Every structure is written in C-alpha cells, then in structure tokens.
C-alpha cells in the first residue's frame, strides 16, 4: 500500500502520542455482528449408528436431532444417501447463532457404497452454486449463506486403518469443504490402541494427500493462542464420545457421560476423550476461521473453476473503475467512429463505381465520335465524288450558247420540230 502523503516509499509507522480511539473499531464490529447474528452450517457424515445425532446434541447442548425412531424389521432400508437438514436458533450471552446441521443418513449402509460420496458432493456444490448466483444478482442486499462450513467425518474405531470408503470420501471432498475427521465411539479403544490408531490414520491421510482442517498459528497470535493451537493440533484426529444423558459418579456428582458396569466415562473429561478439544476448536476458537476458509479459499476456488469451465476469460479490463458518464461518452465515440468508418467505406465504393461508369461512358462516347467522324468522312467523300460527277456531267452537256438557251425554249420546236 503506497501512501500518497508524499513519502518516497511505503507507509511509515507513526507512533501515537495520545489516545485517538480507533482501537475501538473491533468493538464496533463486535457490536454490529452481535446485532446481525451469525450462522454456521455443519455437515455430519458417517454410517448409521455411529453417533452423529448424539454428538451434535452434545456439542450444542440442545436436542437438534430427535431420537431415532424404531423402524420395524420390514421397513425398507434407505437406498443410497439422503440429505436432510435441521436448523436451530440458539443463543448464548446475547449472541445469536443460526445453526444448521446437515445429516446424511444412508451413507455407508448399503452393500455397494461405491458412489456414496456423490450425492454429498452434489449437495455441497449446489450450495456453492446458489451462493454464486446470489452474488451475481443485481440486487445483492439480501444474500443467504448456506454453504457448508465444516464436515465432521465419523471414522469407525476399528483400530486398524482408514477403510476404503473413508479414503474415497475424503479424497473426493477435501478440496471442497473443511474436513474434520473424528474417531467415533472412542470408548471402544484403550489409550494405547487410540494412540496407535491416530498415528495410523494421520499416516494414511498424508499418504493419500488428503487436506484436513488444522489450526495454524500466525505471527499475530499471542503466546496463549499459539499454545492452544498446538495442543489442539496434537489431538487431531479427535477421539470423541457423546452423551445426552447424565450419570451419577460414585461421589454423588452428576456428569454427562456413559455408565458401564466397569466404570463411568465422562464426556467432558479431557482424560477420557477429546470432546472438549473438538468443541473448543469448532465453536470457541476456530469457528470464524472455518467460515473464512469456506468463503475465501474453498468458495473462491470453486467459483474460479466453475467460471473458467464455463468459458469466461479473465478480462483485466473490468478492473478499471466503472463511471457511467464516461462509459456513455466512450460508447458514443465508438459508435461515431464506427459510423464514420462505414460512411468512408461507402463513399469510396460509390466513387469507385462512378469512376467506372464515367470511364465506360467516355469510352462509348469516343467510339461514337469516332464512328461519327468516320461516317462524315465517308459522306464527304461521297459528296465530293458526286460533285465531281456532276461537274463532269455538266461539262459534257455545255456546248449550247446563251441564245440557244433562250431560243431553246422557243426553238425547241423549230430545230427539233423539223425532224
């Protein structure tokens, strides 16, 4: 950013001597956004029964998803993958959040799950398309943003490695959404098994080049944030359990958890599982970053790809400032120039044609004249010939005297009458 205040190079850093007050700007933004409210769209993907609804209800401490209904055995299983979404307006400390959770029942439940990712990808892209269409509208005052901010992918706690369906799904979607893989039903594995499993998962993810969402610290973060980010990063992928029920500990306190004959696992204990870390990252610290990443990186990539594929060429001319008056002038001038050009062309053509015609006429005139001359000479010749003949003829007939001429008239009878 070059400063226009007469400095030779970049902007100078000036030290403030008194309090001006522009540091209050973030607070103003804060107040404004609190007034407007936020929205956050999550998608949960995983096979049936793996704990998606329970986790969401636990994360937001609200019954977003109601209890699964008991289907009778003769109910048809879901064919393919359904996409359903639930919205809830929740409020905390005056901050309103419009939370939308998109569920994907049927994923991974059929015998053939080869294309299970397809309907999900189509759904994500259609949300991008909807936003793109709104952006291109003339009146953009009301844009509703229902793009997916994060996909929580539930990995089955097999303890071995990523399954084929996991790899396929993540490879297809990691460039379109923020992927947050978690190990579901973490109470299946012991601490040691979990560690080995997480290492194996990360190795698989790296091997296949899958990008998952990770908190990164930059130079503006303070030491506490950096430490927080590092501790979150160390637990990825999170191994979580969820519970909508409260159970009683031996000492009488009531906690959110699951009760087994051999003990109680507490949802909010960091020693038992990574639920707190997941909630921290998703809601408390990195929600804005997830939304930003969706808007700036993922959406823009999608938009670029889509527009280029539709045949749009990058035209840098559109980046000049648009001034309507100037535009009209320019248009008019362009139009006039065009008109002139056309006129010139037509005149030239006309001239050419006229010349042609003239030359042709001249040619025929000359021809006529030539012929006329010729004929005249011929006539002249004939006349002169005739004149000659006449003189000759007159010359032979001339012996008569003038008296004879007179008496000829009268004598005509005498001379010749005597015969």
């Amino acid at each position, binding site marked *: 950013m070059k400063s226009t205040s007469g400095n030779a190079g970049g902007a100078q850093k000036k030290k403030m001597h008194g309090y001006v007050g522009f540091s209050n700007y973030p607070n103003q933004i804060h107040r404004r956004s609190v007034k407007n409210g936020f929205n956050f769209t999550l998608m949960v993907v995983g*096979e*049936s*029964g*793996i*704990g998606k609804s329970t986790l969401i209800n636990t994360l937001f401490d609200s019954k977003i998803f109601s209890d*699964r209904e*008991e*289907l*009778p*055995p*003769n109910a048809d*299983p879901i064919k393919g993958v359904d996409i359903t979404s639930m919205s809830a307006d929740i409020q905390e400390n005056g901050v309103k959040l419009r939370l939308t959770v998109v569920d994907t029942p049927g994923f991974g*439940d*059929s*015998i*053939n*799950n*080869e294309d*299970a990712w397809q309907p999900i990808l189509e759904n994500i892209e259609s949300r991008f398309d909807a936003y793109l269409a709104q952006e291109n509208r003339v009146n953009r005052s009301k844009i509703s943003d229902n793009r997916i901010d994060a996909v929580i992918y539930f990995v*089955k*706690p*097999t*303890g*071995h490695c990523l*399954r*084929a*369906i996991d790899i*396929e799904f993540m490879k297809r979607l990691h460039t379109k959404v923020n992927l947050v893989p978690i190990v579901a*039903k973490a*109470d*299946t594995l*012991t*601490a040691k098994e979990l560690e080995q499993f997480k290492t194996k998962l990360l190795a698989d993810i790296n091997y296949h080049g899958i990008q998952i969402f990770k908190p990164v610290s930059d130079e503006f973060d303070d030491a506490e944030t950096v430490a927080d980010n590092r501790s979150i990063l160390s637990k990825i992928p999170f191994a979580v359990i969820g519970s909508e029920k409260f159970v009683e500990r031996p000492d009488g306190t009531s906690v959110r958890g*699951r*009760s*087994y*004959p*051999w*003990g*109680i*696992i*507490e949802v909010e204990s960091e*020693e*038992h599982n990574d639920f707190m870390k997941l909630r921290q990252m998703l809601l408390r610290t990195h929600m804005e970053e997830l939304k930003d990443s969706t808007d700036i990186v993922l959406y823009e990539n999608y938009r670029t790809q889509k527009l280029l594929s539709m045949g749009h060429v990058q035209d840098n001319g559109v980046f000049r400032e648009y001034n309507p008056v100037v535009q009209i002038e320019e248009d008019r001038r362009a139009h006039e120039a065009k008109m002139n050009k056309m006129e010139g062309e037509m005149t030239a053509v006309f001239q050419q044609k006229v010349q042609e015609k003239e030359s042709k006429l001249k040619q025929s005139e000359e021809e006529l004249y030539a012929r006329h001359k010729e004929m005249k000479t011929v006539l002249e010749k004939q006349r002169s010939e005739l004149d000659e003949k006449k003189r000759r003829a007159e010359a032979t007939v001339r012996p008569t005297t003038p008296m004879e001429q007179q008496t000829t008239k009268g004598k005509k009878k005498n001379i010749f009458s005597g015969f």
Partner: protein
Amino acid sequence: MSAPANDVQDYVGFDTITQQMERKFLKRGFNLNVILVGESGMGKSTLVIRKTTEIAPVTQMLEENGVRVKLTIVDTPGFGDQCNNEGCWVPVIKYIKDQHAAYLERELKPNRERIIVDTRVHACLYFLNPGSRGLRPLDVEVLKRLTEVTNVIPVIAKSDSMTIEERTAFKRHIKEELAFHRIMLFPYASDDDADDDRVLNASIRELIPFAVVGSEEVIEVEGKLIRGRRHGWGVINIFDETHSDFVHLRNFMLRTHLSDLIEVTSQRHYEQFRTSQLRQIKELRAQQAAAAASGGAPPAQPQVPLSVMQHQPMTQV
C-alpha cells in the same frame, strides 16, 4: 419305538456303554472347526488370538482332562471391507462347501479311511456391528446364505462400546429382525429335545447375539491377573459375566453344545450337501448317457470328479 422299555431287574451292565463311548472319544479326540466372519477391526482375531491374511485355517491342539480337541479357526480377512461389497460372501461360502465336498469325496472312495479327518466347518461366528440400528443389508444377505450351509452363531464384538441398556435394546432388535428374515440360528429347536435341553436352548437363545469383549492382554487388578482391557475409566474383565457374555459363549460352544455342533453339522448341513451333490451327479450321468446314446461319442469321463461338481452350486450362492 414299538417295543416297551422294561427296567431290567438284575444289573446287566450295558449302561456302561456311555463310558465306553467316552473312552472312544478320549482316544480319538475331537475336531472342532470354527470360521469367523466379519469386517476388519471387529475384533475377530483378538477373540481367538491368532492372525491370518487369507482364508486359511489355523490349528491348535487343546487338551483338558485327557480330552483332546483339535481346534481349527478360520478367519476371513477383507470381508466386507470394500466400498462395493457385492459378492463378498462368495469365498466364504465356497470354503465351507469345499470342506463338505472334501469329506464327501473321501466318504465315497471305495477304500476309505476308517476315521475320516473332519475339516467341515462346525460353527460360524458372525460378527455384528455394534451401534447399528439392527441388521445391515449386508448382514441380512450373508446370514441368509451362511445359515444354509453351517451353524451360525451371531456375536457382537467390541461390545464394550455399548451400555447395558443399549445392549439389551440392540439384542432385542436383532432378534426381531432375524425372526422377520427367517434366519435359522443354532441351536435349532427340535421336537425330540428333552425338557432340560429345551430350557438350556431357550436360555441360550435369550443371550443371542453374544456380546463379547476380547483381549490379548493380561492385566493386573487388585493383585489378581485377569484377561481384560484397561480404560481410563475402568477395567473390563472379559470373564466377568456382567461385563461380557464371553463366558457364556465359551460354555455354550465348548462345554455344553460341542457335540451338538459337530453332530448337527454332520447330520443336517452335510447330509443336505451330500443329497444335492449326489443328485447332481446322477443327473449329469444321465445327461451324459443320453448324449452317448444319441451322439455315439463316449463321455470323456465316466466318473465325474467332485471338483467339477462343486462349481455348480455356486450359481445358487
């Protein structure tokens, strides 16, 4: 049974026949072949503490009180692990039928061994996915086919992820679905079961599917060494009845119903297989005879080998 049974007045001594049979078994020993069917990571290998990479049997000799059991476990790695699992049950069914076929071949030989080594699959432990709503479409397909060729015992592995209520609800749901799809599980009800057998079978059926937890580790709890799993919130003892049904499963398979498993395999599944095979051989022979009679060319092989026969049932799979 027309002749009335009289109680003998003097002691003759034929009641020792049971002991004589026992001695025979002691000398001979048992063969027990079990196949484990389930996806990777379900806990199959841990449950039997051996690992394989293909459908290949692993054998162990166990001895208890002079009774020798040759236990053969067959694992099915890769089952149901792909994106597209159509037909993933075919190698499993083929393996089971191959064992029947091998036994049949040996039985049909003119000079057959006195005691044919029995590699037929006596029991199939089918591992269900904990947490699913009930039976998955894949489960239904595979169970229908498996129950036609062997004794199937459904098992919920890694059941330490379910609380007791969840477990009960899941079992109930599974039982409903199994009944709906008419999948016949071992033990089969039969009319000439004695009363106490019926009670025992009923109690077994209550427990099905068995919710088990496996462990390769021995851990110390309060000074005692137990086989179990240690979590941050508690220790699971796999032999504790309140923690898992492992003990019940083991008793069921090894203590009470071992001979049933072998017998039912032999009498029901094997006989079914044998009947269908022999019928096919007869048909094929008739066809060949007809071809020979009409065509004049003699058939290539008068005795159709069983390996050819085996492939025909595959179309029914």
